[in-house]
């Protein structure tokens, strides 16, 4: 357990350093620091993956159960999704100023939570768990990416003195940032839908009903509906600009609440994944 925790602290340190570098690099328009920040974020993934691997071998299941594991899995996907995008298209790197703090808060929260390993309950012991969680992580990573680009868009747009416009000048043009935000939302919408669908099939397998309006199921639908509204206002009403970016910014925390907040706030048959006894 000690090795795992040490590795996880190293990963968190890497992500904190990356965040600081992004803030410094973007604020003072030092492109070199932004590039270093992407490297630091990428390097932070190495100890995190090692720590999760060690834990997986020890407890016999992936990062699916308990707040520590779930938040860890989400962080891994958020950072991996972002660094892959940043390596493929370095002009997106500056969006890390908004994305990495989310990763740091998630992993920081995980490090403060109980790290006890929870056994797979009979209800959770299914290959559907892997599929369901993988889609949830992918969707959240895409939503955080859209959130980061939304923040970058708003910062540039609202920069009356032009400072932030200069600081974020390496980002693609505003219309391209907007288009990319929408594409990340679309990707997240697809993955979130796949999460709901795989959950419904699994629920039918495990409980004999595919949908039961359980609070966690309902909130997953609410998030999907919110992003459906985003896509409709974008494609059918032709919303553009700052209000669309604000929409992407505001929607992401709701998806986070659906994933991590609902099992804490509500009594749910799904509570088991966050370590609640009633799940």
């Amino acid at each position, binding site marked *: 357990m000690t090795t795992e925790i040490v590795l996880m602290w190293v990963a968190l340190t890497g992500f904190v350093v990356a965040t600081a570098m992004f803030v410094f690099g973007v604020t003072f328009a030092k492109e070199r620091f932004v590039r270093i920040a992407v490297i630091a974020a990428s390097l932070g993934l190495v100890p995190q993956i090692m720590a999760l691997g060690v834990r997986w071998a020890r407890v*016999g299941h992936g990062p699916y159960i308990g707040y520590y594991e779930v938040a860890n899995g989400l962080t891994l996907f958020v950072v991996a999704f972002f660094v892959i995008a940043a390596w493929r298209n370095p002009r997106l790197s500056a969006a890390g100023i908004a994305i990495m703090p989310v990763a740091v808060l998630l992993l920081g929260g995980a490090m403060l939570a109980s790290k006890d390993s929870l056994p*797979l309950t*009979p*209800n959770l*012991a*299914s290959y*559907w768990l892997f599929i369901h969680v993988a889609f949830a992580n992918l969707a959240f990573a895409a939503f955080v990416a859209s959130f980061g680009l939304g923040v970058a868009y708003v910062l540039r747009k609202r920069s009356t003195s032009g400072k932030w416009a200069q600081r974020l000048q390496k980002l693609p*043009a505003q*219309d*391209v940032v907007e*288009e990319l935000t929408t*594409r990340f939302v*679309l*990707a997240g*919408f*697809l993955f979130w*839908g*796949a999460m709901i*669908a795989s959950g*419904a*099939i*699994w629920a*039918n*397998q*495990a*409980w*004999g*009903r*595919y949908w039961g*309006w359980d*609070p966690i199921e*309902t*909130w997953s*639908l*609410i998030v999907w*509906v*919110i992003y*459906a*509204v985003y896509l*409709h*206002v974008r494609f*059918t*009403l032709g919303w553009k600009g700052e209000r669309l970016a604000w929409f992407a910014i505001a929607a992401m925390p709701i998806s986070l609440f659906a994933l991590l907040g*609902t099992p804490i706030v*509500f009594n749910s048959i799904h509570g088991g994944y966050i370590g609640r006894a009633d799940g």
Partner: protein
Amino acid sequence: MIRSVPRKIATVLGSARLAIWLLMFVGAWSMLATFVPQGDSSLPEVAAWAVAHPVIESAVRLLGLHAAFSTLLFRVAVVALAAATATCAWRRTKVAIVRMRTLRTAAGADAESLTAEHDLEMTIRPSLSDADALSKAAGVLAAVGIRTRQRGTLLFSVSPGWTVWGSPVFHGGLVALILVLLLSGFLRSEGLMGVAVGDTVPDAPESYGVLESGVLRDWQNVQRSIRVDAFDTEYRTGSIDRGPVPTVSVLDGAGNVIKSQRVYPNNPLQTGSLTVHATEFGFAATLAVLDKGGVERGRAIQLIDISEETSGGTVPVEPLSLADDKGNRLVVAVTVPMERRGGELSVPQERVARVEVFAADGTPVLDEVIAPAGEIVLPTGSTLRLDELGYYARLSVVDDPAIPFLYAALAVAGMGLTLVVAARQQLVLVTVAESVDGPMLVAKLRLWRNVPTNRTEIERELAEAFQTDEGERVS
């Protein structure tokens, strides 16, 4: 007049604003519903919430938020959303057909047809050869993410026709999903039945303790029964403790086993449209009534639930009504005294049954503890014998013929959405044409979906590359 009514309805249902408002209503309503306990007012949590929130409760009750997802308002919104989605799917299908035709035509285009019909033209230097101009244009397009191929003097990048079908297929899949869910509600039956180990019960409404059955559910043609063959009090697969696990069989009308297996979470018994889960377990006491001569006059099985709320740790599911040889009705309640270890109930090594007998008017007649094969002599002279004290499994039995269609609709919607997300929809044709002003670069651009650039950027980059003014759109 008559034709205009459906058209008006279609216009309303096809309105983007209506769809957005309906989505927002469904989202907001669902959000509210999660903060209000769901169910009948007789439920303890609903009643407690009403007492704790007297001011809000009246509004909640008025809106029907305690039954948020079955209230008429919500159902109407969902039906309207389904209709709006269907209208949207139809409109998107029409758009897809037009786009597919455009792509097909473009796939067969040549330099001459493009010269005759294009939407962008740009004067280029006469010194530039056609080949160099096309090469330069290809480079510009590649730099903004559009890889072109060349056929004669035509540069082209045309998406396949199927790429335009994502949105209509997705919306069509959603409509199919909603219809299948409605169908499922009409055809589905879902219930709980308790079956003692070794016992066989017919799959009929009277066998269920709790049953919800759709209006189109046809019980007449159900000719099967369900049997619990065995019960493992502990069962492990690999490192996972599956808990108490029954072995369940489904039999056809002739008594032949259709399927038999251990049933535990994530491992239901599935045959045809039938799915059997094991939700709980308890004890089953088999009782026989003997007359004075020792001849068996009746037999019944008492199902007993484990209950933390009773002192003995068990409670009969439903007391038995038995008749002795003189026809006197007796009410028998059997429980199994449990042991408490560390505050938790556990099954004793040697199980015994506490048998309480009441007269029809509720007067206590007997209260004795007996082991299996033990007998109690009733005041009337008859004997009550405990033949067996085993287990029973509470089975959740769901028969839903719509589920394969539900999964198919999900798959169709998923494929459509994947196409929307991943498939690029574009048409780019470029060639060099002669005009009275000299050579010109002419192009046709349709950048519909998932294209990494836009028309403005292409025009700007081409103009920069050919050092001319920005391209001129041709209407």
